[in-house]
């Protein structure tokens, strides 16, 4: 199912749309997993709402990662895997970003655990997280050029 209207009963979607009708750009329910496309500028507030709402209570951030859809645009998808420990449920949030200077707001103020995850995405994909307390490379050496997990970066590296 990929229709937002069909899935609007889902607590995460109904709660987010009650807050701001345009914040959920799309939704997909595939292989028992729920994915929501979130408007880029609203990601931090959307996360805070999903964390604090008693119906949703997605209190745990499992993971942040990114997918590069080079050469199509919008090129990057930043992906958040949220877990609700009390409800034992997961939801996936996605934010689409354009290829030229991709940036979005950091969610470290919502979940401090996003710190290393976002640094890793910054390091390997070159996506900037505004408001991150310490946005430095984490896996690659400080003076490394390029972002290895981008699709236009060769598997063997540059030689």
């Amino acid at each position: 199912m990929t229709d937002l209207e069909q899935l609007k009963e889902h607590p995460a979607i109904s709660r987010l749309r009650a807050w701001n009708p345009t914040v959920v750009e799309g939704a997909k329910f595939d292989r028992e997993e729920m994915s929501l496309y979130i408007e880029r500028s609203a990601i931090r507030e959307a996360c805070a709402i999903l964390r604090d709402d008693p119906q949703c209570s997605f209190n745990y951030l499992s993971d942040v990662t990114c997918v590069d859809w080079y050469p199509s645009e919008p090129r990057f998808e930043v992906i958040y895997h949220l877990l609700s420990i009390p409800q034992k449920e997961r939801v996936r949030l996605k934010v689409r970003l354009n290829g030229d200077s991709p940036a979005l707001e950091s969610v470290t103020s919502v979940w401090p655990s996003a710190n290393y995850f976002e640094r890793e995405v910054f390091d390997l994909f070159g996506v900037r997280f505004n408001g991150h307390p310490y946005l430095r490379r984490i896996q690659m050496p400080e003076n490394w050029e390029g972002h290895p997990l981008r699709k236009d970066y060769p598997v063997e590296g540059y030689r």
Partner: protein
Amino acid sequence: MTAMPALDAGQDRTMILNMGPQHPSTHGVLRVILEIDGENVVRIMPDIGYLHTGIEKTCEAKFYQQVVPLTDRIDYLCPMTNNLCYVLAVEKLLGLDIPPKAQWLRVMLNELTRINSHLVWLGTHAMDIGALTVFLYCFREREDILRLFEAVSGQRMMTSYFRVGGVALEPPLDFFDRVRAFADRFPSKVDEYENLLTGNPIWAMRTKGVARITAEDAVALGASGPTLRGSGVDFDLRRDMPYSGYENFKFRVPVATEGDVFARYQCRVQELRESIGIVKQALDGMPQGPIKADAPKVVLPDREKMKTQMEALIYHFKIITEGFAVPEGEVYQAVESPRGEMGYYIVSDGTAKPYRVHVRSACLANLQLLPKMCEGRLIADVVAAIGSIDIVLGEIDR
């Protein structure tokens, strides 16, 4: 000329101390930058990436089945758990049904892996704190488990035993008897470790009240596994979001509320006992039947069929040379590894190679707790804290 003091210890300022990346207590190549005031830690910053090998990037250039040996090498102390998490994710993408015998085997081997991993943790953790004997005992039992792995997969550590659609081979004839002999023997060995540590006053002084973390902090900082349960959060993926047939097994999830090094120690030691219980249940209830799913386009045919049937030979040739195409989509599969929530996020674009493989590392998240645990405490407690979150740098750096 008057002698100058060698160090300006009297002055009010802090010192930067570098611990690692080649420090024996950092379990691999973790570098920790400590800002210290005398013996007290003012600030602590882990520096990682020394073991980064670009496994996620390499996966994108391999067929789905070829990724399995790479997953062994992500967390080299629990290869089977990595194998399981990866194959479950691919099977979810493919929509494959796995026969019960393969599921039971997977659960049994996963619990043996958990024991194996916890034994390495217990031995090295105790050695870091100064109890050298435990290490030798733990590695004695670990050797038994590694021999079981060798019997079933041909490899002691990098097992790669699980396949997309099942497991690689029937286990050898005497395998289950050997596992049962181990399962009968092992609980008394756990008593031995506990005799050495649990009531030991030195152990208690080094671990009780040290590196304390509250439940709120643990959840906010992304802790999982025994590190989370040691702080009183009762959450275990095996019980709460079961996978691979775990819903058929009865076990207790050990939880401790103190949130200190000792609480995490207790959780893991209790898990050793629970795991051996699951292994016994798996042995008792081991179903009969095939060990591979009925999916000729994905699962390699038996050797005998290949020699006698043309179709099987064709499928074999095609799977080896072209891999198998996986329908478009994305999945996130999480399993309870010995260290916490291990997750594989796989994106498929419909071809025979994964478009993106991302590993959610439990250790990477757990490592973020280190500053909260150590700041304001003694340097010696840093060693205890690092040991208590049971990090594996292969998994952190990938």
